[in-house]
């Protein structure tokens, strides 16, 4: 009898426990106070440095002699304005830097459009185009004027001169490994490749023209966040 009573009481207690769980629910929660950081957001990193592209040194008013047999002076070309002439050459380097100092930012954290424009450059340099040879970033003068302008625009990452980049990426041709670009030009003094040195007549005609030919190069690089 005693054993049965114990079992009955145990069973009843078990049942009562199970009944109360139906109505307890969240009372098992235990509240504590915790300290936490403020909810803060910082400004997303941009980082392209304000850059002024200067091409002033591409052409010059004077050019130093290259033939030691000439002893009349140090320069073989002297003018009051920037000029080009047979036997002259020049180069200029430009860049568009991304600032990675201080906090190690490696690329913008926002999507952006990267555009390179040559608007303002001469659209037609006429007969001069046949004499001036150009190169971009290498030493082979294998570009004409139109080819040079196209290559410069293509530095954006797209032949159109404009490309969108996702956050976390630098422009294809202006990244940490390759940020500077060099433009070179050359007006060959004597064309020794041909069987006839016939560029002399063309050179002379250019130098004697009533209206002298001009060449103007302008480069504009812009990075703009896209929405």
């Amino acid at each position, binding site marked *: 009898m005693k054993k049965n009573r114990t079992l009955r009481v145990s069973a009843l207690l078990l049942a009562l426990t199970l009944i109360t769980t139906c109505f307890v629910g969240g009372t098992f929660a235990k509240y504590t106070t915790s300290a936490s950081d403020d909810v*803060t957001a910082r400004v997303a990193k*941009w*980082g392209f440095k304000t850059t002024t592209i200067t091409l002033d040194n591409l052409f010059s008013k004077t050019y130093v002699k290259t033939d030691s047999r000439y002893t009349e002076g140090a320069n073989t070309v002297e003018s009051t304005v920037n000029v080009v002439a047979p036997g002259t050459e020049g180069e200029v380097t430009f860049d568009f830097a991304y600032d990675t100092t201080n906090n190690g930012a490696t690329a913008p954290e926002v*999507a952006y459009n990267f555009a390179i424009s040559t608007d303002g450059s001469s659209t037609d340099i006429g007969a001069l185009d046949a004499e001036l040879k150009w190169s971009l970033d290498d030493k082979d003068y294998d570009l004409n004027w139109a080819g040079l302008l196209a290559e410069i625009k293509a530095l954006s990452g797209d032949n159109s001169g404009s490309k969108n980049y996702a956050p976390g990426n630098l422009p294809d041709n202006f990244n940490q490994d390759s940020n500077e670009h060099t433009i070179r030009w050359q007006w060959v003094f004597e064309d020794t490749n041909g069987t006839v040195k016939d560029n002399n007549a063309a050179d002379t005609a250019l130098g004697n023209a009533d209206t002298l030919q001009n060449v103007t190069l302008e480069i504009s690089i812009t990075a703009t966040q896209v929405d």
Partner: protein
Amino acid sequence: MKMFFTHYKNWLLPAVLILFILQAVTFPFALGQSWAESDSPDYLLTYTKGRLAWSSGTVVDEAGAAQFSLFDSEYKNANGDTTVTSNNDVVAPGTDNDKMVRLYNRVSGSVTYKAVLYQLQASIHDDMEDENGKIDMADKLNTEMRLLHADEGKGYVKDDNPFLPKGVKPEQVIKAVTGRLQGGQYQDFDISWLWKFEDEDPDDPGMKERNDQIDTLLGSLAAQAAEGEIPNTTVGLYIVVEDNNSYTTPESPATRDNGVGTYLALMAVCGGVLLILQWEKRKASKCGE
């Protein structure tokens, strides 16, 4: 044990079965108030007698202010393209976000609430200045608080004497309101912010360019400044409930679960007992055969 089951099998099995069914039926109530999915708040603050508590997972500071996730480390545009990505929560031109906080009065009587939304600017860089003076991040982020399902003057009024968390100055308050909640009712607070991508005014032709310059300055500072000096901002919401003239400030939520795990464990025990009883019953029936 065998004798126990044999003797009580006639009423024990049905009793445990009924208990198990009751547990299953009352399970949703053990979780607390449930909302329609389309109406679910991002954060829930529940008032019970003498107690305010945020829902599990909400982070609060020492003053009891909610530190909810208003900012993100990645943002996408309408086309689904990622336009901002970072290792930290950031803001940038063209980014925005919003969260809904619900204050739920779970007592039978009415209570009075006071809610204040504030914005801090922790980093003032020397270069964060344009021709009009120091640049304030609060001016760049159009942060707002709207009270849903309530009209100003009827459901709430402007609070001219808000309770402010420690460290928050009156000039850092974006909006402070006070209102009354009947028993069983709730009030929603929609917190939103927006950094306009293009900010222009037809009456001010130079505004767009000035804003572009400020935005670019802020972005450049973020990339070039030392880690502790990058421009940043903090937004917080502080709610106080008044009941019988006593004030209760929000507590942080439980660091353990709210009893759901325990409840499920007890349901499992009940279910296990049910299975054992059924098995014993079958065994007894076979022996009887």
